[in-house]
């Protein structure tokens, strides 16, 4: 079993009309054994920037702590929060620093940039950015997620419809992956508010 599949994870981010949604599963496992069903994979960097980390749980926690540290320093120096594009470049740089001993994580970054334009991107474990206009996926269920998102996604969805779409895509994909699932955690972010919802899916 690959080290990326040790804990199990599923992450997806989608772009809507002046909003974005980011969703993850909730399982923390150690290979075949489930340890917990309330593991946090999506972290808030600031009100309009969210980071999801799939892959090895330990490296996700370490990476999150390092990135929050860098963002807080940036905020102190620049007296403003980071734009999502900038943050994505920061994550990419931090990952590539460990090119020959990498963090076993695949980040998904979602944020509202200038003029509240939604921005999403993902990258591999050594920081190769993949920008997308519609959706990005990561984790052990990524192949199922690609299929589900490709068929369910429509451009310019409002936040209610976006929530429904991303939830359905996540739940149907993790049902086909034994290492992820046990519910879902969805954040829908508009310029004015952040809505956090827990999904109840197949608990197996």
């Amino acid at each position, binding site marked *: 079993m690959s080290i990326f599949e*040790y*804990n199990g994870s599923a992450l997806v981010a989608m772009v809507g009309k002046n909003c974005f949604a980011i969703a993850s599963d909730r399982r*923390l496992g*150690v290979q075949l*054994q489930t*340890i*917990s069903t309330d*593991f946090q994979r999506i972290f808030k960097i600031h009100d309009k920037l969210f980071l999801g980390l799939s892959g*090895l*749980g*330990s490296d996700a*926690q*370490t990476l999150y702590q390092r990135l929050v540290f860098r963002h807080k320093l940036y905020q102190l120096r620049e007296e403003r929060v980071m734009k999502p594009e900038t943050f994505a470049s920061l994550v990419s740089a931090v990952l590539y620093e460990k090119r020959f*001993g990498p963090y076993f994580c695949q980040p998904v970054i979602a944020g509202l940039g200038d003029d509240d334009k939604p921005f999403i991107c993902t990258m591999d474990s050594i920081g190769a950015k993949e920008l997308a206009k519609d959706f990005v996926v990561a984790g052990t269920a990524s192949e199922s997620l690609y299929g589900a998102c490709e068929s369910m996604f429509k451009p310019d969805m409002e936040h209610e419809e976006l929530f429904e779409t991303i939830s359905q895509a996540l739940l149907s994909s993790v049902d086909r992956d034994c290492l992820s699932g046990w519910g879902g955690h969805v954040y829908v972010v508009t310029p004015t508010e952040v809505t956090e919802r827990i999904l109840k899916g197949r608990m197996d």
Partner: protein
Amino acid sequence: MECVFGMVGKGFALVVADTSAVNSILVHKSNEDKIMVLDSHKLMGASGEAGDRAQFTEYVQKNVSLYQFRNGIPLTTKAAANFMRGELATALRKNPYMVNIVLAGYDKETGPSIYFIDYIATLHKVDKAAFGYGSYFSLAMMDRHYHPDMTVEEAIKLAEQCIEEIRSRLVVAPQNFVIKIVDKDGAREHSWRRTTKD
């Protein structure tokens, strides 16, 4: 073959560990205490490589005491858990500690808590945790019978059921177990469940 498990009850947290020290087919001793009392209100049940276990638990205990001496106040359970995770994560890519930890603590403000810390430094706050081959049996038993806000008697009964399950279903089951408890009155040894005298 080492079994450690723990659970949170109403106003207390319980940690149970086996007490065997084994080398291949030989049992060196069956009264090895694997649950270290970190400070007045913290218990650290550890399983894994014997040398790493003894070394790492002592290192953490001394550092927890040092913090208290330097700053005049004890660490919270969450802070101690994060300290341990940090040490394990730093050592992970140089010289990893092969130790799995169940940390139980009682804080005045937040009550009892249990933290699951993997040997690769995965940290998670949980209601029930278990490591080792025994975890397949004890986690299943706890999933069935555990409910939030159990009394001490109910929790001890559940711990005994888990121990019984491990004894009857694990091929090289450990002989003796120790149960330690932490609540508002402090961390202390509760009882033993022996099958052999040592």
